[in-house]
């Protein structure tokens, strides 16, 4: 809505800059991305020079006689400006800043503000600039890249001289530590961009910042350049140029400053970089073929981007290590390491670079590095890459003897945390960064003390051998089956890594299990007789992605590859089994009625032995943990354990289907009765007769799926409901009384970061939908739901039945007054039932709030499946759809409108996608078997899921 007649009055130089930038953006949109950053920088240079002339000629402005240098710093100093980059400039005076500096900077900088440029500026005397650089490492880094735009060159020369003599000479060691602390913070904030599906192009590990650090470290410590050849430097420049072009395209596509390459902008950015399908000019590099084979331009682009960032990250690590090699290094290679491999301070390397190492020696080096927990040196990484680039190399590597033993050894040793592994998987990210930064700021080191000597110095976190095997492509060469999935991108909101990276994260998580924090899982892992089979299954579990049945196809692939590598038949059978069934536990635990013994029995039957069950469980845990933060919650963990415990029990004690259920339920009832007659912390003692009558009225299922304390809580809930109902009956005419009476009880679920919320109300159609809607309105994320109907209501009788809906909801945000929250939920359900609150309207209002942004992830397809075979008593309805606020409410309403009564619901929601399962029956208590009705059900649910 900018008016044509208004706007800032711009000087001609600024108008030329504006025109220049817009035609540059146009050219970049038309395809010339790589030229943009340098050209944009030249345009700003030209502006400053012209503007200085304009200012000197302006009437009334006295010419500035004090010598100053106009200096570009930071990214602008390097001569690269992306469309939304900051323009950082420094007006540098030799002595004090004169009064005329104000008019000068106003004249220079105001037009840039009016153009909307992000300007960072400083007006300083030489010595102030130096003092600031000494105090602030961020300033120091920006001053490492200075360039004279205009003004007095001697001023800048003098500044550079003093900067290098007085600041840089002493800055190297603290700077090295600062880089480590800074990188730890980058890892916590942005993650490892070289393995993320929504990478941060500048600040993530592997981003442009890594190349800047290389450049700075080489400037501070020329010795750090030792391992790099001209070829390495050229590859660095090419990778940097690619990521920089991607950032330019990203800024143009987003039309604002953002460095996170989000899903929604990827197609545009990929297109701008020439990844528009199969017709890419010049042909893709060979490494791209895997991505292109799937025919998706975005995948090919991301995979290329990841490979560039992987090399940037590896080179930055090597550069740091060479700049600050540990002073107290003592070689520690495992016994049996062949001749020709040496443990140097900067990593495990080949003793000689020529002749090039043989494939067997290369494999031995990675095994030695893994076992010694040492990084692989840059020279060895380069030797690996060039050996892999030789014609016929794939065959030589794949045909090596002893691959299986070496891989198992490397997998075993890969359990320690690495820089590239997501921080959130190790507990407390905030604490880790705080420690890292504290480590940087706390120590007052003795002069001359190198990093590594002071106990508070941060040790660099480096890539373990397994990560380097993925980075260099060695893993894919040793196991050709791995090559097609190495860079495969999975487009959903669930996975955060491409398959190759995900795979090694699973292996790493498995290898870490025996020493893990979870004592129970660690114990299971330690007693496994064949732990290596689990590791191999972790490696093989996703080999057949993205095939539809990737479990089955993966099992066949795993069989073939293990047989080729010479594994014994038992190992092959176990690994193939684990790969084939690796989704059994996650799918069953989150989507099936775990109280149904046939569910646990089916899992037990498929496994056949406790060893296989345990391995499957551990694999499922490692797989879910490594998929992304949204796939693994304490709630899922508790569901996995429950299923495994139940199945394990059946395996140990044999199937006892019916008698066991009866026995359990009798025991729970007795315990509940004994508990009810004693007063609890928050309730009075219940009369024995009342408690007994409650047990009569509650459904048989209650005693099967709930424990005794919960049953007693429900009795107390029934007592309160009875009291409120009686009061309502006194106040209202009989036709209206009781409809809006609701009672609520909520308790935290230990260890699951969840709450169990029980709501009692008069049974009426659509009640479940109302409750689901109210919970959504209060930002309570529902994990599962169980509907228990008390026939004849609470003791004392009522017309109709009492519905007792039991919801498990995710822990509400901290700081909420929980009692008040539950009271609000209770009131809202009452209002909704009595027509005082329109849930549809309220939910729609909430959806349209600027805070409820829709997910930007690619939308999953909507699917509905009606299954009458999964359960003996219920029709199981499964729905997968993109998530939105109030979806469960709408689904439940659709079910209610078709008179399908919900008895049990399992809700697996990750941001962006739901997988809900409803166990339903018709009002007569029968399964829904009429094909016409099930078809209608499917269509209604698909419609509701829109």
């Amino acid at each position, binding site marked *: *809505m*900018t*008016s044509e*007649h*208004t*706007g*800032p*009055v711009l000087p001609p130089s600024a108008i030329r800059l504006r025109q220049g930038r817009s035609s540059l953006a146009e050219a970049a949109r038309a395809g010339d991305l790589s030229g943009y950053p340098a050209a944009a920088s030249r345009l700003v240079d030209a502006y400053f020079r012209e503007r200085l002339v304009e200012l000197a000629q302006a009437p009334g402005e006295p010419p500035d006689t004090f010598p100053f240098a106009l200096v570009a710093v930071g990214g602008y100093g390097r001569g690269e400006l992306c469309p939304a980059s900051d323009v950082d400039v420094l007006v540098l005076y030799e002595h004090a800043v004169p009064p005329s500096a104000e008019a000068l900077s106003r004249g220079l900088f105001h037009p840039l503000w*009016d153009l909307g440029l*992000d300007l960072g500026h400083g007006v300083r005397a030489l010595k102030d600039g130096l003092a600031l650089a000494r105090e602030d490492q961020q300033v120091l880094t920006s001053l490492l890249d200075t360039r004279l735009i205009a003004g007095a060159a001697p001023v800048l020369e003098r500044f550079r001289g003093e900067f290098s003599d007085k600041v840089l000479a002493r800055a190297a060691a603290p700077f090295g530590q600062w880089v480590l602390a800074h990188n730890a913070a980058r890892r916590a904030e942005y993650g490892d961009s070289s393995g993320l599906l929504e990478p941060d192009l500048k600040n993530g590990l592997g981003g442009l910042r890594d190349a800047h650090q290389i450049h700075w470290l080489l400037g501070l410590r020329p010795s750090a350049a030792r391992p790099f050849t001209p070829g390495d430097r050229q590859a660095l420049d090419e990778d940097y140029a690619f990521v920089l072009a991607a950032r330019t395209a990203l800024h143009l596509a987003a039309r*604002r*400053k953002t460095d996170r390459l989000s899903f929604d902008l990827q197609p545009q950015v990929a297109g701008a970089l020439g990844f528009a399908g199969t017709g890419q000019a010049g042909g893709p590099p060979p490494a791209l073929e895997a991505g292109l084979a799937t025919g998706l331009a975005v995948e090919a682009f991301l995979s290329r981007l990841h490979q560039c960032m992987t090399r940037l990250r590896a080179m930055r690590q090597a550069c740091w290590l060479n700049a600050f090699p540990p002073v107290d290094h003592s070689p520690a290679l495992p016994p049996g390491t062949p001749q020709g491999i040496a443990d140097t301070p900067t990593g495990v390397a080949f003793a000689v670079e020529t002749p090039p190492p043989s494939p067997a020696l290369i494999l031995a080096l990675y095994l030695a590095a893994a076992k010694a927990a040492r990084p692989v040196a840059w020279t060895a990484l380069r030797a690996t890459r060039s050996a892999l680039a030789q014609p016929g190399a794939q065959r030589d590597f794949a045909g090596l003897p002893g691959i299986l033993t070496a891989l198992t050894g490397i997998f075993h040793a890969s359990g320690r945390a690495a820089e590239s592994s997501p921080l959130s998987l190790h507990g407390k990210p905030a604490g880790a960064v705080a420690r890292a930064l504290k480590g940087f700021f706390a120590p007052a080191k003795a002069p001359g003390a190198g990093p590594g000597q002071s106990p508070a110095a941060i040790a660099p976190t480096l890539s373990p051998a397994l990560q380097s095997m993925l980075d260099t492509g060695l893993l894919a060469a040793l196991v050709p089956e791995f090559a097609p999935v190495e860079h495969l991108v999975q487009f959903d909101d669930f996975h955060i890594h491409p398959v190759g990276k995900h795979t090694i994260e699973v292996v790493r998580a498995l290898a870490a299990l025996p020493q893990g924090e979870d004592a129970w899982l660690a114990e299971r892992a330690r007693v496994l007789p064949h732990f290596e089979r689990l590791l191999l299954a972790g490696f093989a579990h996703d080999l057949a992605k993205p095939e539809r049945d990737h479990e089955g196809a993966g099992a066949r692939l795993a069989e073939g590859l293990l047989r080729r590598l010479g594994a014994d038949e038992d190992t092959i059978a176990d690994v193939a089994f684990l790969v084939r069934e690796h989704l059994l536990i996650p799918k069953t635990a989150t989507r099936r009625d775990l109280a149904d013994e046939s569910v646990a029995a089916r899992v037990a039957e498929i496994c056949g032995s406790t060893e296989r069950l345990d391995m499957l469980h551990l694999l499922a845990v490692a797989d879910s943990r490594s998929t992304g933060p949204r796939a693994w919650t304490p709630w899922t963990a508790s569901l996995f354990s429950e299923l495994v415990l139940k199945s394990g029990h059946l395996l140990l004690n044999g199937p006892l289907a019916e008698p066991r259920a009866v026995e359990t339920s009798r025991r729970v009832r007795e315990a509940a009765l004994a508990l009810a007659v004693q007063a609890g912390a928050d309730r009075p003692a219940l009369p024995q007769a009342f408690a007994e009558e409650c047990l009569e009225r509650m459904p048989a299922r209650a005693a099967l799926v709930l424990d005794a304390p919960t049953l007693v809580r429900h009795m107390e809930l029934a007592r309160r409901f009875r009291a409120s109902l009686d009061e309502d009956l006194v106040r209202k005419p009989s036709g209206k009384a009781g409809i809006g009476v609701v009672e609520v009880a909520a308790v935290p679920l230990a260890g699951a970061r969840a709450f169990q919320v029980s709501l009692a109300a008069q049974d009426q159609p659509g009640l479940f939908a109302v409750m689901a809607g109210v919970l959504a309105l209060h930002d309570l994320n529902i994990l599962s739901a169980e509907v228990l109907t008390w026939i004849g209501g609470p003791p004392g009788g009522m017309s109709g039945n009492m519905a007792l809906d039991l919801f498990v909801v995710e822990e509400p945000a*901290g*700081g909420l007054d929980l009692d008040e929250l539950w009271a609000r939920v209770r009131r809202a359900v009452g209002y909704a039932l009595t027509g005082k609150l329109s849930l549809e309207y309220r939910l729609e209002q909430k959806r349209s709030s*600027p*805070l409820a*942004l829709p997910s930007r992830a690619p939308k999953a397809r909507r699917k509905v499946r009606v299954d009458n075979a999964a359960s003996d008593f219920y029709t199981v309805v499964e729905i997968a759809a993109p998530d939105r606020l109030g979806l469960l409410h709408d689904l439940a309403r659709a079910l209610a409108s078709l008179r399908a009564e919900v008895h049990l619901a399992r809700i697996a929601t990750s941001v962006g996608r739901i997988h809900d399962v409803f166990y339903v029956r018709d009002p007569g208590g029968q399964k829904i078997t009429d094909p016409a009705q099930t078809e209608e059900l499917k269509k209604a649910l698909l419609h509701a899921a829109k």
Partner: protein
Amino acid sequence: MKKVEIITRTFKLDDVKAALAEVGIKGMTVSEVKGFGRQGGHKEVYRGAEYQVDFVVKVKIEVVVEDARVADVINAASKAARTGQVGDGKIFVLPVDEVVRIRTGETGDAAV
């Protein structure tokens, strides 16, 4: 366009300012304000009858942003201002009909 008003603890001002700068907010208006919310300031009961409510000193940060940025601003500000204790403050979002930059006469998004 929306105006986002963030009322927060005085010592959180710098954190919130930095967090807003991080999401690209370049301008803001800050004022020192007094008030009380749910915790009711400090309540003094004297002989069961008289009481006074002290106003608590807070800062109010006002920014005007285009609609699409509101969620970013709120997320950044609430993350930065949060201590988890009573008195963390509030965020209000109001519609803005028009903006004029006085020096240049620009209006609408260009003037923000």
